[in-house]
């Protein structure tokens, strides 16, 4: 089996976000960038399946600027076999168009399993996997917290849903999106980081896809969220209860 794992380069989750003064977006200059945390989980899951002999090849795909090669390289250091970068000048391509690009790559590579993060922590869209599954006509299992391959050509996926856990059975080929508790991604070892430098990353220009990547949403402005007014420290339990009763009038 072949797995295609989609990885996005985003601002590192530890960085404090700053909105640009001109309200056009958030500051990305000199800001630490990393692989989207859910995509690390996606890579890890593919690597574990490969270690169990369920998968023969892992392709790590990113759509972005040249710098996304670093993100792909991290995926290769974790255990991916080869990379594909679909190169664009535009930093933020919308999920619908990302989905169409992934669809085109899938037509060429015919993966048995496409694994994505459930959500990119920059746009917080939570759409791309569902779009890819729809465009390809593959079944989807979103928000996966456990993935179990059966002996026939199906997979049982446990999904984190609002009221508990749902299990569904999907046929291969399929799309899976990862939730936080699917696994804990490994740190790439130094030898593996070195080895990853030899692995191949194919770079394809986005123009060759013939997909109109114009955004459908205009971002009119990006603002700071409203600040909460500063609170106070209370001395003891009694004054806490007092405040809740008399000031907040909740109890």
């Amino acid at each position: 089996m072949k797995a295609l794992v989609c990885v996005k380069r985003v601002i590192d989750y530890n960085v404090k976000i700053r909105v640009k003064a001109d309200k056009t977006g958030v500051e990305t200059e000199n800001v630490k960038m990393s692989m989207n945390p859910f995509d690390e989980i996606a890579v890890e899951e593919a690597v574990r399946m490969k270690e169990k002999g369920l998968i023969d090849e892992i392709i790590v795909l990113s759509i972005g600027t040249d710098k996304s090669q670093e993100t792909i390289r991290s995926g290769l250091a974790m255990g991916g076999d080869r990379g594909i970068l679909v190169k664009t000048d535009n930093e933020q391509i919308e999920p619908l168009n990302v989905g169409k690009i992934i669809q085109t790559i899938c037509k060429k590579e015919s993966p048995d399993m496409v694994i994505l993060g459930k959500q990119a922590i920059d746009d917080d869209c939570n759409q791309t996997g569902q779009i890819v599954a729809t465009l390809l006509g593959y079944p989807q299992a979103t928000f996966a917290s456990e993935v179990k391959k059966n002996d026939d050509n199906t997979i049982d996926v446990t999904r984190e849903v609002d009221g508990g856990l749902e299990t569904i059975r999907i046929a291969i080929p399929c799309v899976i999106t990862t939730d936080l508790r699917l696994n804990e991604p490994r740190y790439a070892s130094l030898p593996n980081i070195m080895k990853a430098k030899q692995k191949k990353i194919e770079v394809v220009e986005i123009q060759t896809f013939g997909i109109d990547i114009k955004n459908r949403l205009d971002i009119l402005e990006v603002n700071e969220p409203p600040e909460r007014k500063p609170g106070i420290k209370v001395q003891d339990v009694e004054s806490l209860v007092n405040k809740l009763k008399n000031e907040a009038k909740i109890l």
Partner: protein
Amino acid sequence: MTILVVIEHDNNTIKQSSLSTISAAKKIEDNVEAIILGKDMNSAVNDLKKCDHLKKIYTVDDKMFENPIAENLSSAIAKFIDGKDFSHILSPSTTFGKNMSPKLSALLDVQQISDITNIISSDTFERPIYAGNAIAKVRSNDKVKVITVRPTCFEPCGKNSEIDSQELVLDIDVNGNVSFVKYDQSKSDRPELTSAKIVISGGRGMQNGDNFRLLEGIADKLGAAMGASRAAVDAGFVPNDWQVGQTGKIVAPDLYIAVGISGAIQHIAGIKDSKFIACINKDEEAPIFNFSDYGLVGDLFEVLPQLEEKL
């Protein structure tokens, strides 16, 4: 303009998330219609018929909708709207809506607007990005606007109406590549996390699952829902669906009490629309204090029993 709201329900009652989505729809435009797909869902439909603001209700009752399989739901809804003139299709941004709605957007070839928190006009919306550390105002150029709505940002609609429903038969094939296996519902007698007036959550500072009993006594007295940080869930103290935050549940109660939670941005993202936030933490430098109206520096193992007693 006519808006279609896709209703989330459990075949018995409709979810509060749907009531908020109906209110959001009404803010865009008066012409609001709803579609509900399920199996043996008479009581859910009766519930829906009472909802304010709805001009029409379409029901689809079929075995294939007994469980919310996204493939079947999205093809059915796409088939239903084909040739009709809906301007907006709204779903709640719960796991139900997040799973299904982007498929609809792909079938219609439009870019979904996820998790809107505010409506500026019929084509312009606000939505949080970067875990709510920035708010984007976006305008959609698509003909049909497929939207998911953050339920906590819109008051649930009232239930003072009585309108008819119209049963539809949609001739679609069940998707043979996906089947439902089981649903392990986490059982709780407490209010639902996302609609409770008071929420009390524990973090890594609770040390283990047993210690959550210290919160239970307080939750009982306050009629509060219980939640947790990711660290507490990952450590197996409490079930997954208790997680509050950017990638868990977004809550906006009148009072949120964070106990033994440091206040990472991903956690704050899920609580900052709460009216009041109180916290108990032994580290006075913990970031949670910057977001709390009332912060108590102290050891939770001493403070919680006192708090329970004083309530």
